[in-house]
């Protein structure tokens, strides 16, 4: 009795496990009816930050790409392809973050170049007047 019960339990478990797994897998793909609001918001905020920090000037290509991804993400929402919308929103966000990082590094490089130029000018001037 005892032994028979256990066998039945094992059989059912073994049957059920893959099915549950498969359902979980299928349902993940098939249903995501809610728009990825958080990702979309974060992406548009990242784009706004990139634009405010002169990203247009320092990384125009990436900024255009981020905005294009955003447009595609919104289109995917309209087509109820929410997984694709989420991926595109994340891509838009990471691209906008790169715009910001590139802009900051370009500005830092400008400051350093300016400092270096100042020092070189002093050194050159001294060398010239030393030759006099």
């Amino acid at each position: 009795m005892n032994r028979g019960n256990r066998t039945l339990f094992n059989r059912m478990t073994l049957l059920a496990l893959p099915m549950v797994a498969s359902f979980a897998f299928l349902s993940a793909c098939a249903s995501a009816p809610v728009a990825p609001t958080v990702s979309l918001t974060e992406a548009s905020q990242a784009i706004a930050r990139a634009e405010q920090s002169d990203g247009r000037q320092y990384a125009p290509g990436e900024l255009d790409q981020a905005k294009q991804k955003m447009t595609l993400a919104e289109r995917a929402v309209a087509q109820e392809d929410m997984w694709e919308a989420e991926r595109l929103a994340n891509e838009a966000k990471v691209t906008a973050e790169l715009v910001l990082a590139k802009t900051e590094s370009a500005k830092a490089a400008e400051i350093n170049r300016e400092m270096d130029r100042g020092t070189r000018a002093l050194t050159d001037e001294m060398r010239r007047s030393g030759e006099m």
Partner: protein
Amino acid sequence: MNKQRMIPAFFGNPMALLMVLALVGGCASTPDSPSGAEIARSNLTALQNDSNLANRAPMEMRQAEEAVQLAEQPLPASQSRLSEHRVYMADHKIAIAREKATTRYMEEERGRMAEERDAARLAARTAEVDRARRSEEDMQRQLAELQAKPTERGIVLTLGDVLFATGSAELQQGADGNLNRLVAFLKENPDRKVLIEGHTDSVGAASFNQQLSQRRADSVRYYLVSNGIASDRLSVAGLGEDNPVASNESAQGRQQNRRVEVIVENE
């Protein structure tokens, strides 16, 4: 006992077997990780091996590492869009880490650059002070050669009456030595202005002496101008006999009183 039964249980359920195979097969069908992930991995490794950048953006580096690991996970061919997405994310996280680390590296460089700039600035200032001191020394030496005396009006050079014949305003030959030193001094100190004053002794009419002193001062002025000194730096006064520097009673005193003084005005 149970284990022995497990295997037949799978084969006994074709449905379950199919699903398991589908899942396993999905994983197995792309044994190679996507080449995009390989490129991302090598880009990340290059960044991690860059001693200037490796430790300067730890958070971004960790996120890049995680993104690359995700991109490296094999996916079934049917998931090519997801795979592409992960590679895209990894590429961008690496680029962000590189830019942030570069920014921080440059910010840290500024301390060293400021030190270099300050050192250059100090050296330039020291050199400038040295130059100024040297030119001041040069000027003092030249003035000493001209036997100049500093006074409150400026530096006074006295050109004695040996420059002129008695009653004449024409420069005698041999006057050039002193005057040429004056020309050289004025050329090297282009900011200095000069007052040329003529004086006489008390012999003769005062009006004649005044005119004579004026003509002698003019002669010196003319000499300086013809040797390239701008005339607007030179003013002239004929002061006659009223400013003796010695007694007019003796010949020696009168000789001292017949003179042209060149006053180099203080800056």
